[in-house]
């Protein structure tokens, strides 16, 4: 049995909304509303959802860049939710993060070398400045850039190169778990492939565990071993990738996957189009939060929220009913030439 690297239990994050002349808290944005996750050593767990579903907040809560409202974060058996000071710092260096926007995540006034050596110095991972330089040189080469690049500033790089630098910086602390928050959504497709390959290579080489957050279903399918589908702050369905993409059992997963335009005109298909928009996370619908857009919803869904329960080992679905749905994507038998 492979070891569990990270476990999240009942995580919630409610952002208060203040209003009125006394600026009292009038309501909450329920960005994350009860999420459980378990990520195993060496795997990539893909967290997919539309904007506003809370996937980024989950990532930030794990690192406690945002303090969770309730819930527990357990890293390798140790509850890190309430840790402080040095003890927390020692654990946090094992968890890296790469953000979506490489233009915002690098300090424009810092050379690349400074950006790479700063975390090493902060976490006291190197004895001397020389060692830090040496390690920075290794890292920059490892992500496919060269030593000259160390002495430049972020504005001299393209988006893809910046994201490589962000990867190098995340690796500087020698983490074993990395949160990838939409790492390619700012990049062009021809560059996206380079970064995805780099991430796969690094995972294999350094035995990393990834939490891959994205709204892009194709990228998630390519990168992940297991996938969790989020909707309005909760996980609706989680399972092995093949199950999610070929035999989903939650109507939202089904609609989401069938909604994706597939770059193959031979595969034009019947799609399930959901009506309406995602409800506001301030006024989450009663009962099942997906019921307002679900074509199978009944009165019972209005009253009772379905628990995320196991249909098969490892396949958890949050729905009252066991629905029979078609495969959302026809798989072509004829292999295409390209």
């Amino acid at each position, binding site marked *: 049995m492979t070891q569990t690297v990270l476990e999240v239990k009942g995580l919630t994050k409610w952002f208060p909304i203040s209003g009125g002349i006394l600026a009292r808290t009038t309501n909450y944005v329920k960005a994350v509303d009860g999420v459980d996750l378990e990520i195993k050593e060496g795997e990539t767990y893909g967290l997919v959802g539309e904007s506003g579903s809370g996937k980024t907040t989950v990532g930030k809560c794990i690192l406690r860049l945002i303090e969770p409202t309730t819930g527990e974060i357990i890293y390798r058996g140790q509850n890190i939710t309430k840790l402080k000071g040095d003890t927390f710092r020692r654990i946090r260096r094992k968890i890296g993060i790469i953000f979506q926007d490489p233009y915002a995540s690098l300090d424009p006034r810092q050379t690349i070398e400074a950006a790479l050596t700063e975390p090493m110095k902060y976490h006291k991972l190197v004895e001397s400045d020389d060692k830090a330089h040496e390690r920075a040189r290794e890292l920059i080469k490892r992500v496919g850039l060269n030593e000259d690049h160390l002495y430049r500033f972020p504005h001299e790089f393209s988006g893809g190169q910046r994201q490589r630098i962000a990867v190098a910086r995340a690796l500087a602390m020698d983490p074993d778990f990395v949160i990838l928050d939409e790492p390619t959504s700012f990049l062009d497709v021809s560059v996206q492939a380079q970064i995805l390959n780099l991430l796969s290579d690094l995972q294999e080489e350094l035995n990393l565990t990834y939490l891959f957050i994205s709204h892009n279903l194709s990228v998630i399918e390519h990168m992940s071993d297991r996938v969790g589908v989020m909707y309005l702050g909760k996980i609706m369905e989680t399972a092995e990738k093949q199950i999610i993409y070929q035999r989903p059992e939650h109507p939202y997963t089904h*609609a989401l996957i069938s909604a994706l*335009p597939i770059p193959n005109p*031979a595969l034009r298909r019947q799609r399930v189009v959901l009506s309406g928009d995602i409800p506001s996370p301030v006024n989450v619908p009663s009962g099942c939060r997906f019921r307002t857009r679900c074509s199978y919803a009944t009165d019972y869904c209005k009253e009772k929220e379905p628990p995320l329960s196991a249909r098969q080992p490892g396949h958890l679905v949050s729905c009252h009913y066991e629905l029979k749905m078609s495969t959302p994507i026809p798989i072509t038998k004829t292999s295409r030439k390209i």
Partner: protein
Amino acid sequence: MSGSAPGDGEVLLQLKNVRLRFKTYAGDVKALDGITFAIRKREALGLVGESGCGKSVTALTIVGLLPENAQVSDGEILLSGKNLLKSTPEEMRKIRANNVAMVFQDPTTFLNPVLTIGDQLEEVFLLNPERLARVAAKRRTEDAQKKAGTSGERTKKEARESSLAMLSKAEQRKVARELSIEVLKKVRLPDAERILDDYPHELSGGMRQRCMIAMALARKPDLFIADEITTALDVTIQAQILELLRELKREIAGSTLLITHDLGVVAELCDRVAVMYAGNVVELAGVEDLFANPLHPYTQGLMRAIPMIGRPLERLETIPGSVPDLIYPPSGCRFHPRCPMALDRCEVEKPELIHTGKDHTVACHLYEEKKS
């Protein structure tokens, strides 16, 4: 849709060797390097490429909305035979009002935040009082016919006469509002009456984009340009808009130019596709032909580089390097520094678009060699 692809139909819009540069402090950005393609009547042409390849600039050139530092140095754009590049600003304004409508990526920036949707949508109709008078007259006859049964020969005649009479401002507004409600219903917006009194911030992204589409369609344009209209939307909302476009395609009599970087959107909606790279059209073909048999090394690379559901791959193939800086574009074929199959001549000589098969053109030296 693919089945009803309009073959070698009549040409609506023809771009011929359009060159354009932007003057900047850092130097001239050679954004378009001789773009040539045609949009046929009633077809949906997809324009795909990565950011910075010139897709949006091409669209802005067509509608004449380029920023001041842009300079078209060569070429012509013919809309039903009329060169748009030689038109005066006043003529272009009329063309935008009547012939070519464009919808942009981000509906939030293109809707006026201090006017209601109704104010903005009704304006489209109010600009054309003759049309309003015609519509009003038609309605009157229809009503009269309903009342008098089908013996409406005389009423028709009366209507024709009364249609020449102009409406008062209040009447105009009333008819414009009715037409606005109709067009909002056409883009499947529920509760159209209420939406007309809403301000843009009261609507969701998908609804705003529907309003933008409604404004474009209200003009019954010959050419409908959609510039990345689903990019800013979530997958499920994107599916709604794609479904809407598919339905509207049957209703729109005009042509569509669909600009996107998403090959999936192209595969679903277009009849033909033009692939752009660094200011050039590198390949142009029917959608099925292009996906089954991409010829240009860039198109091939692009298709192998995208993760696709239902096509499990161990590794994605990559195109080395990144999109070039167009202040100093590569010589010869602009793709040659990244091309795995580059020949010596690619560095010096720019390839022309050549026909390689029925309705399939490509700008690559590899295929010239084969042909000769």
